[in-house]
Structure formats: C-alpha cells, structure tokens
C-alpha cells in the first residue's frame, strides 16, 4: 500500500470524495479501492503469505484443541496447570496493553493535548491487547462457555482472579467506549461521539482504577504460590506493585513499538500530523517509560532486600534473574536516558523493542520458567506454540484492519 500511496493513491479519510459523492460503507471497507483492486493489493503483500501459512497450520490445531481437549495441545500437567496460553496471552499481553490507560490519563486527565496524535493508537493498542488476552484465555479455559460464571452465576469475590475477571471485563467496555469517537467519525454517527465525549473524564478515572487493580491483581495471583515461584520473582508484599509498575513502561514501550511499525509499514495511512509529531511524541513517551523503569528497578531491589533473598543471587537462578534485570530493565533504562539526552527518537525505539522483550521475559519467568523451580521445568508442547502464534497473528490482522480504516493514525477530515 505504501507503493500505491507513492503513486498518488489517497485512502478514504472523509465522508465524501472530492466531487461531492458520499462514500458508502462498502467503499469505506475497501478504502476507496474496488474490491478487485483491494484483493490484488492483499495478494501482493508478502506478510499476507506468511499469515496464510500460519493459518493453514494453526486453524486445524485450534479446532483440534476443542475436539480433543487441552491435553492434546499442551504439556500442562497436574504440576504445571498454566502454560504458554496464559504465560504469553494473559500475563504478557495485558501489561503490553497498559498504553490505553496511560494515554487516556496523559491526554484527558493531565490535559497534555500535545499527545493527542498518538492517543488513539494507545487506546486501540490497549483495547485489542485486552480483547486478545480474553481470546487466549478462552483457548486455555477448560470450559470456555462458562466464562460468565464468575460474573453472574457463581461468585467467589474473595479470589484475586475474581478481581482480574471483573476489572478486565469492565475495563474492556471502558476502552470500547473510549474508542467510540473514532468509530463514530468513520461511520458518521456524531451523536455517539458527543455522548462518549460527555463522560470521557469518568471513563478515564475508571480506567486508572481498574488498571491499577487488575494489573496489580495479575501479580497478586502468584502470591497464592509461595514456594512455587522462585523467591527472586516472588514477593508477597511487592508482587502487585512490580506488576503494576512494569506495566507502565511495558505499555509505553509497546506504544513506541507499534507506532514505529505503523511508520514503517502503514505510512500510507498516517497523516502529516502523526508523522511530523511522532519523533517528539516518542521522546515524550520515552521520558515516562524511563521514569517507570527507574522506579521498577528500585522496587525490585527493595523487594530482594525486604525478603532477604540475597543468597539466591549467587545461584544459577540468580544469574538468570540478573540477566533479566540487566537486559530487560537496566539496558532499556540506559538507552532511553541516552536517547532523551541526545534527542534521538531512533535510539528510543531500539530501547522500546528491548523493553518489550524484557517484560515478556519477566512475565514468562514468573508464570512459567521459574514456576515450580524446585520441581522440574516444563517445555511447552509444539501445538501450544502453534496456537499461540495463530492467535497472535489474528491479533495483528485485526489490529492492521482497524488501523487501515478508522481514524487512528490520521484525523477524519469532516467535523462531526
């Protein structure tokens, strides 16, 4: 599409074309191309071929999971009830989606309107990340059709997972509402936009509350397993704070990563306002991420001191811990700081990619790798890996489809 844009193609960004013709919904879905042109565009994209291969392998295995049960696709055992679906899909996807409440807070609450060009991308990243965390959960749950049981049928309100379930669910609807303006502009529904605008402050405050609690609660879940999670990754008083604080830089770094990918691969869909402000915004976000990283590093050290876990530092697990901290926290912190000092958005982007990888490592360490450290290590089943890749590919497809259409990376021309 970038090539097409260079040849002068202008994707739809207003309700009417230059000659006064109103675009139909079909036009909007095909971006102003004819269905034939659109399809041939899709065929030319090599990434779509990779996706096709993923789906050819992955979809039958996902179907198989629901026919033959979890035992067919995972190595989840009696000792390792949680595998890659939750380790990656829930525990990693959710912190990487913290950008939603971060950007909402920055723009709507603190009134930093200079971050507006990237606010919607932050919100969308949040919404889709949560949505697909739920999809991953649905693949993992033994009885996915009972997902609403903790909501309405049989309530166990004293459980941490109860908090996660309720807060993720309400926050998900909160995020849908926050993105209604983008949808309303695209579809031409001014009243819906006005309605949401009237309660945006309430939604944002609710978003902060719900995010604090469920990001923390994901860490809180592991406080049920003292002795099972390695002491260096376990700290009953600090666990929730570690998860919350790391979600801050995880969400911000992920936002830098997706905005970078948009700049590279979806340049045709970005407007001048977005492209011109991106470097400045990247550095602004980096500042937040660097502060969160510094805070996180300090509380990680305090937690080790508080629980007096120093003796573990000199074991093999301790080296693994130090590796995670050096690569996942200290390295991005140093790079972000250098980037801020030199005003280099490029370096900030490198650092964001590393921070995202670091947070994935941290969550996988807590949920999978150091879990049952005293027992034995579990290696995920290949089918489990395939399903994770397939669901994640779907996440990318949906993400791309929304970005291509709704006014996320560009602003809608008509005032609605």
């Amino acid at each position: 599409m970038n090539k097409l844009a260079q040849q002068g193609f202008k994707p739809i960004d207003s309700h009417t074309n230059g000659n006064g013709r109103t675009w139909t919904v079909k036009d909007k879905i095909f971006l102003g191309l004819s269905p034939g042109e659109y399809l041939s565009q899709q065929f030319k994209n090599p990434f779509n071929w990779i996706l096709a291969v993923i789906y050819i392998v992955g979809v039958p295995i996902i179907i198989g999971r629901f026919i033959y049960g979890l035992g067919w696709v995972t190595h989840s055992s009696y000792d390792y009830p949680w595998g890659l679906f939750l380790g990656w899909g829930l525990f990693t996807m959710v912190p990487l989606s913290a950008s939603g409440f971060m950007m909402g807070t920055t723009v709507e609450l603190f009134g930093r309107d200079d971050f507006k060009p990237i606010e919607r991308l932050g919100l969308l990243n949040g919404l889709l990340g949560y949505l697909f965390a739920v999809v991953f959960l649905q693949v993992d749950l033994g009885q996915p059709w009972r997902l609403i049981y903790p909501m309405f049928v049989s309530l166990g309100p004293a459980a941490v997972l109860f908090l996660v379930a309720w807060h993720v669910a309400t926050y998900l609807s909160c995020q849908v509402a926050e993105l209604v303006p983008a949808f309303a502009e695209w579809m031409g529904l001014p009243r819906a936009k006005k309605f949401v605008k009237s309660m945006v402050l309430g939604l944002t405050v609710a978003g902060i509350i719900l995010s604090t609690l469920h990001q923390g609660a994901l860490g809180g879940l592991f406080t049920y397993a003292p002795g099972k999670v390695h002491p260096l990754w376990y700290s009953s008083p600090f666990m929730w704070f570690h998860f919350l604080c790391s979600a801050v830089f995880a969400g911000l770094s992920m936002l830098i990563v997706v905005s970078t990918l948009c700049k590279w691969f979806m340049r045709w869909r970005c407007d001048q306002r977005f492209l011109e402000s991106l470097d400045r915004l990247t550095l602004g976000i980096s500042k937040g991420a660097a502060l969160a990283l510094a805070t996180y590093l300090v509380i990680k050290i305090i937690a080790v001191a508080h629980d007096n876990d120093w003796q573990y530092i000199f074991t093999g697990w301790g080296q693994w811990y130090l590796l995670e901290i050096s690569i996942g926290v200290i390295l991005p912190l140093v790079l972000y700081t250098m980037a801020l000092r030199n005003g280099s958005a490029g370096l900030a982007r490198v650092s964001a990619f590393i921070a995202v990888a670091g947070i994935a490592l941290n969550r996988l360490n807590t949920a999978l790798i150091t879990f049952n450290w005293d027992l034995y290590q579990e290696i995920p089943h290949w089918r489990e890996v395939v399903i994770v890749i397939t669901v994640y590919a779907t996440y990318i497809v949906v993400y791309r489809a929304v970005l291509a259409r709704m006014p996320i990376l560009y602003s809608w021309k008509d005032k609605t």
Partner: protein
Amino acid sequence: MKKLNRRSFLKGGLAGTAVIAGTAVSKNSSAAGNFGGYPDSMGVLVDFTRCVGCRSCEAACNKEQGLPAPDKPFDDLSVYDEIQHNGQKRRTSEKAYTVVNRYEIEGREKGPVFRKFQCNHCNEPACLTSCFVNAYTKTKEGAVIYDPTVCVGCRTCMVACPFYVPAYSYSSPINPVIKKCIMCYDTRLKFGRPPACVEACPQEVMTFGKRNDLIKLGNARIKNNPDKYIDHIYGEKEVGGTAWMYLSDVPFEELGFNTHIGEQPIISYVKEFLTIVPMVLTIWPALFTGFHLLSNRKEALKNEEKTGNK
C-alpha cells in the same frame, strides 16, 4: 450453615467496600483473627510406622469414588518402582485420588517407609480462597468438597494448592473438571462414617476422629514412644492446619513432605494485595480527579493572564 469464617469475612469486606458500607464488615470482624477450622471438624491421623504398602486404601478409594480401572491392578506392587516426570514418585491423578509411595530410608531396620498421599483438607484451603466461582466448600465435617457444575477450568486452585493435590481431566474436551479426594463426603463423612480408605486399611494406619482429639492422640503416641516417633505431627499447624495429619519415625522431608511450607495459611500471603483493593477504589477517584482539576487550573490561570495582559 451460617458459620463465620475468614472467607465470609473477606466476602463481606469486599462487598462492603464495593458499596462503601462499613456495617457488613464490622458484623463479621470478630472472625478476622485466626480461624482454626470448625470446632467439631473431623480428620484422619496417618501413622506411617504402621503402613506396609498393601495399597488396599487405593483400591477402596477407587471403588468408593467410582474411578476408572487402574493401569495396573491394586495388588501389583511394582508401581513402587515407577518413576514419573523428572524422578518424581507417583502422584494423585484424575484416576487416583490417593496413592501410596515407597521411600527407601538408609539405616532404617524395618525397611522402607510407605507414605499415603491424598488431599489434606486444609482448615483454610488455598484452593477455596483462590477459586473465583466458589466451586470449593469446606464443610463443617472438615472435608473440602468441589462443585464441578460451576467450575470454569481456570486451574488457579492447582496453582494455589501448596500440596500439589488437585488433578485435572485434561483429556476431556467437553467437561474437564478438578479431580481430588473429597474425604468420601457424599457417601460417608456426611453420615459420620470414616472415608473408605480408612476403613479398608488392615493395619490401622489411619485413625478417624475429631481433629482436636487426633492431635491429642498423636501427641500421646509421641510421648509414649519418644524414641520411635519424630516429635512432630505434620499437618497440625502447616498452612494453618490440615484435617489429615501424619506421624512418622523418619524426618518428614525424607518422605517428600514440604517442610518449608510455614504455618501461615496461603490466603495470608494474598491479603497484602487484597488490602490495597478498597484503598485504590476509594482513594484513586478523588486523587486523580484532583490532579485533573489542578492541571486544568494551571491552564485556566494561563488563559486569565493572557486576557489580563491584553
């Protein structure tokens, strides 16, 4: 069954903060201290010095609970040589709610020790407090039972159980559920009868009775045979106490028991997080609305200055 325990206290606490009504909390707060289980709850004292490893208890459990036929018959003692994942001994599974394992102890004249293993039926079960659909119940008789009709299959209880007890029917695509010993609650315990395994034991390894009496009995046995027993009843205090308790003549860690488990119930590790929930719910709205007003005020001042200068 309107008993006060920590769980209903927590429930009340959470519900109370949700509506910011303090009354629900204060009514139950007397139960907030230490919950030692129901006063009349039953239990089983297992004396490993008596066990000969005949596996009668496994057979009885299989029959009583209507479990599928085992891979090897119950009189086949070769199962003791089985080594599972990473050198582990046999564990409870969806097909076996209890297993007996053999431990070769160096220097023990009487030969190996046999250890029976099943759900310990904690006074404050981690599975119960971690379940977000309330599938677990601790009955006043002491059993921890499970309701498969509400289970979502999230398996948090398996993460939470410090004894690695709950098993899960991973192979079932339609109705996978947790499988664990329920102390024969439906068929026996409810009517005051001992679990099937206890009754089947030819060696009287297990004594069924009120938990409080069993602790006295255990202490008496230790006192009368100080050279024979390790001076510890495993389960009396571990993770807040369990309904099943154990006596042994070899150190418990040599029998695969977790002796670093502590005396705190698992829920007490989680409480530190749970206490922040009402705080965030009440403080955050005011705090962040305040931030918003402040940041707006700065702008309003700026605008005022501008118009003032004009």
